[in-house]
């Protein structure tokens, strides 16, 4: 058993490494704006990967994942701001910022996890929902968070030793985002495929049975929450670096729900699905916006559609996907690719979760 787990872990790490290199290389093919979008995709991917584990594997419905991202963003902003005050720069400032992000997001995630171990289904959803709604009030009341205006984040310029290789700041930020996402998501993938993943599935399947098998559901649930929170916090830190700002407006209820839509459309419990979902969340609004402007609608119609059409399309997509491919887009693709790869590999360990929410 140990041998298979460690070989499995090695496989995941190698694949993550390969994907990271591939993504870093891809930044050379993209222009600045695409690189910016790629960085945002990577940041959102950090959050959706944690969320898909939380909802898909342990069945804990979090409507407030944006708050955990915001925690990471504020943690980064505060720690990096402190670093500037004590004259740190470069890697040290970045490292301190990331530590800040991880600490704040981990602490909030830990508290939420403790609550999550005691609350079921709709009650946990209600709690996390309340957090998102309370975020603007919280940031405006607590001094040092900058109210609605938010906090500015020190700019991360391209380091000198990389300047001859990279062609823009956006590309450098995309690199940061890809590397942080790799560090954030790979452990989740390892968790998911190892014993922890089994325990999570067991708890989701039947808590009493899990308990009889010697698994403590409360511990498994709260650990899953912390893991998801750390990853989301790193995503928030990346977003803060890329946009040089963190404000409550960027982490509102709509964004939080969009994250959930992303993991459901992508496929609950699947990290590949979370990646697909994060691409959709970032690119779909932009695609729709580009489309509506290129059609040449009257200005007032265009203004009315802006923002609203995206919500409509996401809603329609959610309904379509859950009706046609209940397992999400990743499983739909996996079905096609699966038969192909099975021929090459003669094995398939794809598992489609049958029930998607906590019973």
């Amino acid at each position, binding site marked *: 058993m140990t041998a298979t787990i460690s070989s499995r872990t090695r496989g995941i790490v190698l694949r993550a490494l390969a994907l990271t290199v591939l993504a870093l290389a891809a930044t050379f093919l993209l222009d600045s704006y695409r690189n910016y979008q790629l960085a945002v995709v990577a940041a959102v991917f950090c959050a959706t990967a944690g969320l898909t584990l939380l909802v898909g594997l342990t069945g804990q419905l979090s409507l407030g994942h944006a708050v955990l991202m915001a925690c990471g963003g504020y943690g980064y902003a505060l720690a990096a701001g402190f670093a500037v005050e004590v004259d740190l720069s470069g890697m040290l400032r970045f490292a301190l910022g990331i530590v800040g992000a991880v600490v704040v997001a981990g602490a909030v995630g830990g508290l939420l996890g403790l609550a999550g171990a005691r609350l079921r289904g709709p009650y946990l959803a209600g709690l996390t929902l309340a957090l998102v709604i309370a975020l603007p009030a919280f940031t*405006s009341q607590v001094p040092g968070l900058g109210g609605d205006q938010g906090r500015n984040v020190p700019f991360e310029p391209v380091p000198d030793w990389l300047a001859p290789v990279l062609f823009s700041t956006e590309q450098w930020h995309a690199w940061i985002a890809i590397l942080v996402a790799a560090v954030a998501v790979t452990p989740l993938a390892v968790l998911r495929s190892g014993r922890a993943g089994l325990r999570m599935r067991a708890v989701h399947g039947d808590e009493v049975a899990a308990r009889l098998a010697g698994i403590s559901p409360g511990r498994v649930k709260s650990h899953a929450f912390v893991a998801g929170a750390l990853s989301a916090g790193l995503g928030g830190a990346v977003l803060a670096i890329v*946009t040089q700002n963190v404000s409550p407006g960027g982490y509102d209820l709509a964004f939080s729900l969009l994250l959930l839509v992303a993991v459901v459309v992508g496929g609950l419990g699947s990290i590949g699905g979370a990646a697909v979902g994060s691409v959709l969340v970032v690119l779909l609004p932009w695609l729709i916006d580009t489309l509506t402007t290129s059609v040449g609608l009257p200005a007032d119609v265009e203004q009315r559609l802006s923002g609203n059409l995206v919500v409509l399309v996401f809603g329609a997509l959610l309904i379509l996907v859950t009706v046609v491919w209940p397992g999400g887009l990743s499983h739909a693709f996996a079905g096609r690719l699966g038969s192909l790869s099975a021929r090459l590999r003669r094995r398939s360990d794809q598992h489609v979760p049958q029930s998607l929410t906590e019973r």
Partner: protein
Amino acid sequence: MRTTHSTPRTLVRTVVAATGAVAVGLGLSACGGADEATPGVSEDTVTVGTHQPLTGPAAAGYSSISAATSAYFDYVNANGGVHGRTIEYLVKDDGYNPANTQTVVRELVQQDDVFAVLNGLGTPTHSSVLDFLNQNEVPDLFVSSGSTAWNDPESYPYTFGFNADYLVEGSALAQYASDEHPGEKVCMLGQDDDYGETLRAGAEIVLGADGLGAYETYETSNQDVTAQIGALQAAGCEVVMLATVNGFSALAVGTAAQMGFMPTWMASSAGGDYPTLVGFLGEDVAPQLLQGFVSVNYLPFSPDSEWVELFRQINEEYNDGASFDGNTVFGMGVGYAFTEALAKAGEDPTREALVEVLESGELVGNGIVPLTYSAENHAGYDAAGITLVDGGVQDFVGSTYRLEGETVTAVEPEQVALEGDGIPVE
């Protein structure tokens, strides 16, 4: 990353693909930089962009600004444009949310290749793209906010403010209060951010560090100021300065009237536009509630000004006769100043030439005093004129104050005259 396993073969393939991509990428990046054309300038067009709150909480007060600027550019284009080029104005909606501003401004610069960003609105929103615009050396002209952050030529050489900043406005209002209402207790209601803090700092230049009798703050997310107004009333304030946006100026005046509290109101220009306030308070009661309402302005706003007459015509013809208020004058004033800068930047404008024109101090604008840009100073207006509402008409009273360093002096207004048909030529 599904839980499938890499076989050595797929891994090899991945690595080969990655190496190939890196090689192609390096090749591409080496070719970059060959493009010498100025972004946003073609044979017959100049494209500029802006971020504005067309939706969201600030839309009600400010969405008409960009429409007015567009209307002025349409007027210029209909009269032959500038050096044979028409001006295209791309307006992007950011909903007054810094997170959206980030995205739309990148879109403007990197996808739409704008020549310059013009009149981006809001302190929190524009702050979030300040570094980005300057790193990319995009001229960032006439920021639509009175924050003092835009005047920092060393850190932000491409950014230029426009509004008389809140220090100028705060000191002008306080000077007027001590000149015209000597011995009265002056207080302030401020927005709980830089806006309120800076206007307060401006007032305290004149009144002294503890010169304000009371200072109350509000949050834009809470539409109730009863507690704050009650505190000001209890403190016995006779003059209340407002560092508020239009909606909250109206809310403060209305709430105070309900409580029987009638101080002299003195609002910053961002929250003191009479036609907009009438829209909030209603035409039946507004003239009474706002009788004696003091505010500041630095753009021509007298009903009998020739500029106002011209702008009214343009508004009728190119803006579908939208309601004419301070935002309209502001939007068109911005359009005029940009057209002037573009005309002076020469036949083949470059971004450097545009910035040079502004730093040379040649730019005049159309305000009640000339614009004051120089290499060391990127703030637009350093003086503000006091306006007063009397019998439902808001007009200048003649008092104009200039802030130089820490001293406020009364100056004579030098309204820039309208020449020709209101389209600047070199």
